[in-house]
């Protein structure tokens, strides 16, 4: 299938048998409408956002070596062998679309956002996006422009912060000598 005609098309990638289309964030609503009307993706299966703050830096998946590989001079090197590819912005928002036909076609539309950026809501294209967008707002603090009631869904109304952000404190008290800085 040819995806280059999608409004806001940036690039197309194939990995692990899945197609990922990067879409310019400002055009996501028109792109979704186009995918639904012209390409036949009737269903929005899932909408998920990811925070890439600290992606590829030390302290997340254990010790991480340099970009070229592990540092063999450093003791107990575990974690990554190489640094993962750099992401364009902090947040990614992925729309998993499905075309109900034989064989089924799935595609992931993805757009990239910085902290504080707004994304057009796709409720007008798929009403199911309502709760998905609210959950995304609740968990990661990404707001959707044009959503009729952008409120928290899972957490309490007066909750502080967005729990799935990588800079959200995960609790615990600082202990002396625990940090060897």
């Amino acid at each position, binding site marked *: 299938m040819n995806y280059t005609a999608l409004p806001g098309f940036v690039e197309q990638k194939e990995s692990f048998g899945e197609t990922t289309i990067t879409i310019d964030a400002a055009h996501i609503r028109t792109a979704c409408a186009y995918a639904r009307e012209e390409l036949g993706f009737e269903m929005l*299966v899932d909408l998920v956002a990811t925070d*890439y703050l600290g992606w590829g830096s030390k302290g*997340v998946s254990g010790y991480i070596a340099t970009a070229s590989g592990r540092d063999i001079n450093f003791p107990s090197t575990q974690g990554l062998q190489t640094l993962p590819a750099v992401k364009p912005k902090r947040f990614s928002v992925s729309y998993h679309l499905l075309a109900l036909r034989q064989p089924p076609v799935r595609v992931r539309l993805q757009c990239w956002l910085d902290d504080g950026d707004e994304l057009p809501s796709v409720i007008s294209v798929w009403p199911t996006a309502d709760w998905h967008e609210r959950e995304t707002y609740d968990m990661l603090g990404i707001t959707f422009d044009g959503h009729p009631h952008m409120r928290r869904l899972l957490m309490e109304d007066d909750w502080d912060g967005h729990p799935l952000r990588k800079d959200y404190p995960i609790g615990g008290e600082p202990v002396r000598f625990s940090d060897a800085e």
Partner: protein
Amino acid sequence: MRMLLCELNRIHSHLIFLGTAALELGAVSMFWYCFRERELIMDLYEMVTGQRMHTRYFQIGGLAEDIPEGFYPQCREFVEWMPHALNDYRTLLDRNKIWLERTKGVGLLSADDAIALGQTGPILRASGVDWDLRRDQPYLAYANVDFQVPVYPEGDVYARYRVRVDEMRESTRIVDQCLRRLERLKGQPWITDDRKVVLPPREELHTSMESLIHHFKIVTEGFRVPEGEVYVPIESPRGEQGCYLVSDGGPKPWRVHFRAPSFVALEATATCTHDALVADLIAIVGSLDAVMGDTDR
């Protein structure tokens, strides 16, 4: 075996739906009948995995342990009994006037609405859309078994009940086919011997240095997953259960997100209750079969 347990779980889930949905509409005896068969499934589960619920038996590379002695005959007994139980349910409900009047034509969801609302699984099939990931996008060994996908066009509570009862029947058939196959495979290994992902057997640790290293590496660090992102959907009892996973190339996932069918099903409540009576709400929510633990994950 995994497929067999998945199907048992599907029957188990639908039994709970049927029992509680009927209970909510006043058919208390249905609840006891359903939980009677549910108990049989739980016994099978306990036998295989040691736990009745929230079992941990599937592993990367295979199963945690061998299938125990005595599982096959007991499971076969269940497979032979289940169609009779399903006939009982049908007799109990299909001539029950209260059940019929409270479910037929209630909670209507058209096929277009169901698709726009992202509904999957029994709800979608009860709205007349012929869609089942087990058949359309086969995983495990679903391509090798014979089963029908029940579809009802009415889109009401009654259709959802019919879809689920029919699905239990089909699942029983799948379990039967799996059993036949498994009985021929007796004595085969239950897990891969790839030491990069599976712990070596305990007795090897005393004699083999490599096993000890593999054991240590897997326990302390885990194994690496290639960098990238994937979305893997399966047909769970309630519909499409998807798992979105982002890996940075290390042993721990960067982001895991589950697409929960209950979350999406509950969203359809508003559309289904359009033009309905308040008293029908309980029938409608019951028929959407949303489980709160699944909804908020």
